[in-house]
């Protein structure tokens, strides 16, 4: 069973929060929804889990009890211990007795949280708290796992740990969608959906997205057109559309995901605000 959102449109008052966005989440794989603050990531994921109603479009999702959802902001109760958080959520999904204990212990072990089982969630580091939130979303072994920015603001080692947990869930067959602001996480996913201002910038596997790029990227110390250039260290990368001649002698580079996403963002914003 494939899950997802087809041509989803969401308005919040006068703001078009999601403009004809489609997302496909397949079992046994991880999809990354990538974008910054206000891109529409949370709205898309909330529409998938049924917390936001689409104005137009369709949602394919299992019933709520078959979804594990980690919201961007919360995920655990700060005044409960790690074990209490797990037990509470497990209880909601009908787990009890030995079944609950063994599931809880297994998940905490995987998340390296066993030794912190009796600590209050408020005493955990940011990374540990996100791992707890992930474990809580996993407690009922859901076929669809929806994770809203599990890794934002946490350190690289905790991010690697979280990514391992996410991969484990996919390896065990779950359909996983996670949002992120980090392009490297999108690169590591089986497929990615890049959003900006509620619109799709790019969609598909990393190879698809890179292959769909039109135009040329050059590397230069002083850009010709400052508005179409961005820093890569001390140098700039500069975008040239297919119908524009690249200056002779310019050094061409193979665009990476960052080049592609930056270029697509510039083009989309130009479209929206004509000069």
């Amino acid at each position, binding site marked *: 069973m494939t899950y997802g959102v087809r041509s989803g449109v969401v308005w919040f008052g006068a703001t078009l929060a999601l403009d004809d966005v489609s997302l496909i989440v397949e079992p046994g794989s991880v999809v990354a929804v990538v974008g910054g*603050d206000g891109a529409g990531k949370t709205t898309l994921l909330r529409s998938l889990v049924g917390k936001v109603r689409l104005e137009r479009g369709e949602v394919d999702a299992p019933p709520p009890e078959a979804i594990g959802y980690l919201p961007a902001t919360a995920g655990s109760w700060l005044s409960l211990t790690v074990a209490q958080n797990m037990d509470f959520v497990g209880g909601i999904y009908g787990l009890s007795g030995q079944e609950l204990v063994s599931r809880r212990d297994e998940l905490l072990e995987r998340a390296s949280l066993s030794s912190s089982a009796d600590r209050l969630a408020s005493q955990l580091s940011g*990374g540990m708290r996100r791992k707890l939130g992930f474990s809580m979303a996993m407690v009922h072994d859901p076929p669809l796992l929806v994770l809203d920015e599990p890794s934002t603001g946490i350190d690289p080692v905790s991010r*690697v740990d979280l990514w391992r947990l996410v991969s484990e869930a996919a*390896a065990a067959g779950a359909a996983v969608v996670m949002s992120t602001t980090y392009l490297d996480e999108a*690169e590591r996913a089986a497929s990615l959906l890049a959003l900006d201002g509620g619109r799709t910038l790019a969609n598909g596997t990393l190879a698809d997205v890179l292959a769909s790029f039109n135009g040329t990227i050059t590397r230069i110390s002083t850009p010709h057109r400052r508005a179409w250039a*961005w820093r890569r260290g001390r140098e700039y990368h500069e975008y040239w559309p297919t119908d524009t001649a690249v200056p002779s002698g310019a050094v061409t580079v193979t665009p990476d995901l960052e080049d592609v*996403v930056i270029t697509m963002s510039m083009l989309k914003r130009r479209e929206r605000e004509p000069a």
Partner: protein
Amino acid sequence: MMATPAAGAVPAAVLLAADRVGRKFGSFTAVQDVTLHLGPGEVVGLLGANGAGKTTLIRMLLGLLGTTMGEVELLGGPPDLERRRHLGYVPQGLGLYRDLTVSENLAFSAQAYGTAPPDLPEALRKGAGRLVAELPLGLQRQLAFLIALAHDPAVLVLDEPTSGVDALARATLWDTIHEQAEEGVGVLVTTHNMAEAEQCDRLMLMSAARLVAQGSEADIIGPTTALAIRTDDWARAFAVLNKAGQPVMLAGRDVRVADAEADLVRRILADAGVNAEVSGVRATIEERMMVLSRAPEGP
């Protein structure tokens, strides 16, 4: 290439220096024996996991926390109030007054530093009367930068400056950082986004209170290697290696293992009947950090 300091900037070969500094809290050592020199026009990236000691080090460099070992020198002397006037600092939480408007935030900091409020870029000018709390995160970050730069600091310290923003906003913020460096400002920046390592002239990696590596990305990665595993059944390859306790990581449809013996990995896969091609690849900074965190006694 080292840019020359702009007129008005304090001419000094080293703007900010820590010489074998350390900090203990009771019996806990947060920072031990760290030496760091920041010169004019340099962008230095400070990397490390949570608890590595980055924040404590930064607080000492800013003069907000005393050292229990070694000395910090800012612009040739102790980081006292007068010298700290030449510092620009953007904390992780941005340090803005969320319940004041953009203009009010600017006026407040201008008064504190005795400078004129800076000119606003168009995006912020439109929102000048809005409460900071109502602005998108990208604009809040731009405002925090503007405030930190308004008094022409000689040294800029940025804690996670690009966290949470999109690729284009990130590029804009890095533009500002590089422009400052080109005018001779020394920039010390922390980031959790290892892709931003390329934006820095020099990197420093902290682990368990110590500086464990410094230099280029290759210097930081050091001897750490990784294996890339190409297989038709990534899920099974991942599962068996994970079960065997290998530091395994999914990368697209490939699986990576940091700091592992190729023969052992091949044997684990073969025993499980997984057909795979195993090859040695360059490790990433994350993988280096993960290896360090598994061996807390250091390299």
